[in-house]
């Protein structure tokens, strides 16, 4: 296993991603997050190659003072974006997730349905857990539905099944069953042209 690099690399491990609780309903197509971050932190994040000593150097970062400052009311959704969004994206691969930073004064989440409906979540002063609970409650699949879907998915894995997406494509792979006629020709008296007398079996 290679070294895990970057910020909070546990977010990219499979057990962590699989532990996500939120699976959106089928009607949800897009989720957008809006929140504020410290302007200074954002500029520093963009200049990743800047030497840490130079970060406080006004010659390097001319843009001062930093007018946009994050508010404690935005900390919950920041943590949500950092910790929970990877899990959500993993569990909902067909949903588009976008984060907009410093575009709106208040922190909110907007979800868009397949029929164009927009569901807003005002997450002012929420913790990330509260945000997740609200999303699960309003737009997430219930635990019963998830259990049923898991059961249906398991049924496809039944070893007795055969066909597309199964462990074996054809029943002829099973010992004791009739092989495919392309591999072993059928007995002549099973074949129409001999059975109906168009061809002679002895030939």
């Amino acid at each position: 296993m290679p070294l895990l690099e970057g910020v909070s690399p546990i977010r990219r491990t499979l057990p962590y991603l699989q532990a996500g609780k939120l699976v959106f309903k089928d009607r949800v197509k897009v989720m957008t997050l809006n929140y504020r971050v410290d302007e200074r932190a954002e500029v520093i994040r963009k200049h990743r190659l800047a030497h840490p000593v130079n970060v406080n150097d006004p010659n390097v970062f001319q843009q001062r003072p930093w007018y946009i400052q994050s508010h404690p009311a935005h900390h919950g959704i920041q943590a949500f974006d950092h910790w929970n969004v990877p899990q959500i994206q993993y569990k909902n691969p067909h949903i588009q997730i976008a984060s907009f930073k410093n575009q709106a004064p208040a922190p909110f989440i907007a979800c868009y349905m397949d029929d164009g409906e927009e569901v807003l979540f005002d997450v002012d002063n929420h913790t990330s857990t509260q945000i997740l609970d609200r999303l699960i409650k309003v737009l997430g699949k219930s635990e019963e539905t998830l259990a049923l879907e898991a059961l249906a998915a398991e049924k496809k894995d039944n070893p007795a099944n055969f066909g597309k997406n199964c462990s074996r494509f054809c029943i002829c792979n099973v010992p004791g069953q009739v092989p495919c006629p392309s591999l072993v020709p059928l007995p002549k008296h099973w074949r129409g042209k001999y059975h109906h007398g168009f061809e002679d079996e002895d030939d």
Partner: protein
Amino acid sequence: MSNSLGLLQSTMSRSPVLHRLSLLRPSTLVPCRFKGHLLPHRKPRWIPPAKSKVFVLPPPDHTPESENTLMNELVVNYNERLSGVTQYLYEDFLRFSDVGEVGRIEAAKEAEEHRARVAENDRENARIVEARKQRMAQELEDKKRRAQENLEAIQTADQARIRDLEERVQRETAILQNAVTKENLDAKIEEALANPVDHEYAIDTEGHIYYGRYTASNDVPENQRIKIPVPKNEMDFLTSDDDAQLEHES
């Protein structure tokens, strides 16, 4: 044929060893359909081009690159949109057509539940908006109060500074009243001559000081010796007022 096949199958199903060794294992099977009928219909790979065609170049394509790009874009867009429509129709099929009336009823129920939850969410949003308004008003109040406190602190500091300055001015004025001027020069000289000041002193290694030119330090009793005044710390010494220091000494 049928007998031999049946025998083979029954033998295989009875004996796993035979099955493992059998030529009928799927990995070793070769399709016999089209055998001898479908002939290979291209030149083998190891045969070079015909001598008459070796120097015949394929016709160059003069289509502008922009046109190719445009065509590619159109094709990609078309495929994307068509696949989107297909996906939508497939999902619609899964939702409604598959189970007929039951699916419709289920979908209507689900939609009703969704509406209820969204309505609940809207109420929650309204509550949060109200809470935020209160919070922002409270924050504004706090900000005003803090600004007022800062203002008051600055005013207090200013007043203290002005008071100090006034005191100092008064002190200086009092000192200046004893100053030597042209008018009282003779009187001051006479006074100085009448009251000679002895600035001499001696110190010892134990930190005592003995004032006066004619003081015999050994004759001063132990309990009457004066310690050299020392500031409590260096900063006191550095920041102390010279006049205050003088007053302290005198």
